[in-house]
C-alpha cells in the first residue's frame, strides 16, 4: 500500500511512529543506530509518575512489531544521505557490522569464551561488559553483538569458535542500502548534556558525582549494581543524597532551554533512594520545580516525605573532599544564606540535548538556535528532536508524526 515511511530512531517516539503508521496499513522501515530498539527509555529504571518499568510498554510494542509484517527494522544503522522531495525520497542507509548474524540464539557461549571487555554503553560506562555481548537483558532484537575492537583479533576468533550455530561472522562488512520512502520521520532522540561542560561541577572528579541517567542504571535491576543504590566510589550505601537541578539547562552558557523532564526525574529518583534506603536523606537543589500538569500530584507525594528536602538554590560549586564526599556551595535564595553542604552521593540533573544539535539531518531542514527541528513537510521531526519532552508526549508526538507522514504517502 503506497510508499514506505522511513522512521529514523528506534526510541519511544520512533517506535510509536513506526507502529502507528504500520497498524494503519502503511509499510515502514525503522532505522536505529543502536543494536537494539527502545532508545533512552530502555535505560530507565522506572517512569514517573507511576513508577512503572518502561519494559512493560516496550514489551507490548516489540510484540506489535513482531506481529506486524509491515515493519522492517534495521539496527546499527544510520542515515547518511537523503535525496528527493516529499513523496519521493531516496535515503541512503549505512549499517555497521554486528559480526553476529540472524543464526544467533542468544545462548551466550560467545560471551563466555571471550575475555576482552569494553565499557558498557548501556550502563553509561559505569561498568565493563564482555566484548561479545547482549546489549541488555531485554534487548530487541534478542541477538548478540561483537564489539569491533575484537572483531579482527584472536578474541573475535574465540567468539567464533565458541558459537555452535555459525552465527559469528567476523567478515561482516555491514551494509549500505537505499530505501525509497514517501516521507521521513526523524525521531533521533536526545543525548544527555555533557556534564563535564559545566566545569564548576567538576564532573569526573569523584566517582560519587554522577548524572541522572547514570542514576537510572544504578537503580535498575539490569544495571551495574543489580539495582542496588550505592556509591560508585566505595560501594557504600549513601546516607545524604543531593540532586542538582538545571545542571546545564536553563543556562545561556549551556542549554538555554528548560529540559522539561529533569525536575520530575529527580523527584522520581528521590523515591528510588527513599524506597531502598529508609535512613537516607535526599536534598533537591532547584531554581523552580517544574512538575507540569498532573505530574504535580507526584511532586506533592514526594514533598510529603519529610526526608526529602527542597532547597531553592542553584548550586555554584561542587568539590570532592578527602572523605570521598562532595561539598556543594550555594546560596539559599529563600533565606539569603550562603551555605556549604556535604553529601555522599550527588546526582547532576543534566538535561536533554536534541541529537539534531549534535548531528544534523542530511537534508535541508530548519532548526531553532538550540538545534530542535522545526515543522516541515516531508521530513517530519518527532519526539525530543522537536522539544524536550517526557515519554507520553513523545508517544503522542510520534503518533502525530505518523499521520503527517501518512498524509504524504496515502494514495501514492
Amino acid at each position, binding site marked *: 500500500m503506497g510508499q514506505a515511511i522511513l522512521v529514523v530512531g528506534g526510541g519511544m517516539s520512533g517506535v510509536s511512529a513506526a507502529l502507528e503508521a504500520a497498524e494503519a496499513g502503511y509499510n515502514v522501515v525503522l532505522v536505529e543506530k543502536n543494536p537494539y530498539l527502545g532508545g533512552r527509555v530502555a535505560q530507565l529504571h522506572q517512569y514517573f509518575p507511576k513508577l512503572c518499568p518502561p519494559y512493560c510498554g516496550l514489551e507490548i510494542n516489540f510484540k506489535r512489531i513482531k506481529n506486524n509484517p509491515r515493519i522492517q527494522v534495521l539496527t546499527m544503522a544510520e542515515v547518511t544521505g537523503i535525496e528527493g522531495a516529499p513523496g519521493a525520497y531516496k535515503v541512503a542507509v549505512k549499517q555497521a557490522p554486528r559480526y553476529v548474524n540472524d543464526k544467533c540464539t542468544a545462548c551466550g557461549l560467545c560471551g563466555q569464551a571471550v575475555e576482552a571487555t569494553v565499557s558498557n554503553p548501556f550502563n553509561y560506562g559505569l561498568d565493563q561488559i564482555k566484548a561479545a555481548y547482549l546489549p541488555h537483558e531485554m534487548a530487541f532484537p534478542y541477538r548478540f553483538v561483537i564489539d569491533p575492537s575484537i572483531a579482527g583479533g584472536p578474541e573475535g576468533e574465540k567468539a567464533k569458535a565458541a558459537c555452535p550455530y555459525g552465527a559469528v561472522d567476523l567478515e561482516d562488512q555491514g551494509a549500505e542500502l537505499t530505501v525509497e520512502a514517501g516521507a521521513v520521520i526523524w525521531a533521533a532522540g536526545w543525548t544527555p548534556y555533557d556534564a563535564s561542560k559545566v566545569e564548576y561541577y567538576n564532573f569526573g572528579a569523584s566517582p560519587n558525582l554522577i548524572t541522572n541517567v547514570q542514576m537510572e542504571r544504578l537503580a535498575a535491576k539490569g544495571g551495574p549494581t543489580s539495582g542496588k543504590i550505592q556509591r560508585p566510589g566505595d560501594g557504600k550505601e549513601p546516607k545524604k543524597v543531593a540532586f542538582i537541578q538545571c545542571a546545564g539547562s*536553563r543556562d*545561556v*552558557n549551556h542549554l538555554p532551554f528548560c529540559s522539561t523532564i529533569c525536575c520530575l526525574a529527580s523527584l522520581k529518583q528521590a523515591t528510588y533512594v527513599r524506597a531502598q534506603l529508609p535512613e537516607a536523606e535526599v536534598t533537591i537543589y532547584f531554581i523552580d520545580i517544574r512538575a507540569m500538569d498532573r505530574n504535580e500530584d507526584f511532586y506533592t507525594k514526594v514533598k510529603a516525605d519529610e526526608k526529602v528536602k527542597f532547597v531553592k538554590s542553584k548550586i555554584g*560549586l561542587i568539590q570532592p573532599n578527602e572523605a570521598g564526599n562532595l561539598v556543594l556551595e*550555594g*546560596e*539559599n*535564595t529563600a533565606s*539569603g544564606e*550562603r551555605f556549604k553542604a556535604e553529601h555522599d552521593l550527588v546526582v547532576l540533573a543534566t538535561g536533554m540535548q536534541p541529537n539534531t544539535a549534535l548531528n544534523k539531518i542530511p537534508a535541508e531542514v530548519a532548526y531553532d538556535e538550540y538545534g530542535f527541528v522545526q515543522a516541515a513537510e516531508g521530513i517530519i521531526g518527532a519526539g525530543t528532536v522537536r522539544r524536550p519532552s517526557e515519554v507520553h508526549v513523545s508517544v503522542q508526538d510520534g503518533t502525530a508524526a505518523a499521520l503527517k507522514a501518512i498524509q504524504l504517502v496515502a494514495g501514492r
Partner: protein
Amino acid sequence: MASKAYDKSFREEVYENVDSGEEIKLCMQCGVCGITCPLRDEMTYGPRQIWSLIRAGKREEVMNCSDIMLCTSCYACKVRCPRGVKVIDVMHGLARYALRQGIVPRKETSKFGKVFWDCIAKTGRIDETDVPMRYTMTAGPIHGIFNALEMMDIGRALLSHKRMKFKVAPGVPPAKKIKGIRGLKKMLKKAAAMSPGKES
C-alpha cells in the same frame, strides 16, 4: 505586615541611569553569583540580593551598601551566570552611580579610582608611580606621608628592581602624555555625553 511597598521608581532609575543597569532584568534569582564571588564573605548581600532589592525599590539599602564597590572584576560570576547577566558591569555601574549621587560606598577605592581615571584622562596612560603617590596623598599631607612610609619598602623594592620610575613627588617629573591626547579627550567627552544618565 509588609516592611515596605514595592516601588518602581528606583529600578527605573537604575535601568535608565546605571551603566548596564537593564541587565538585572534578566536575573532569575538562582543564587549562583552570590556563591561564586571570591569576596562573598565580605559582602552583606551579594549581587542576587542587590538585584532583588533594586526590583523592590529599596534605594537606601542598595545605594548605601558597600558591596557595590567591592568587585575586583574577576568575572567568575559573569562566566557562570545562567542568564548571562553582566554582573560586573552592573556592579561597577551601581558604584559609579552612587558616586555621582555623592554617595561613597568605599572611600579608599573611590579615591584611588579617581586618581587613576584622572591620570588616564590627562595623559592617556597610567603612570604606575604617579598614581599610587597621588592616591597616598589623598589622605591629606600628614596621613599621606605616613601612608607613603608604610608603602615605602614596596616602592623601594620596585625601584631597585627596575620596575618603577623615580619620582620625588606626584607629578615631578610629569608623566608623559600620548600623542593623541587631544583626540582622546574629545572622545571621552563625547562618550560621557552619550552615556546613560547624561553624564557631563
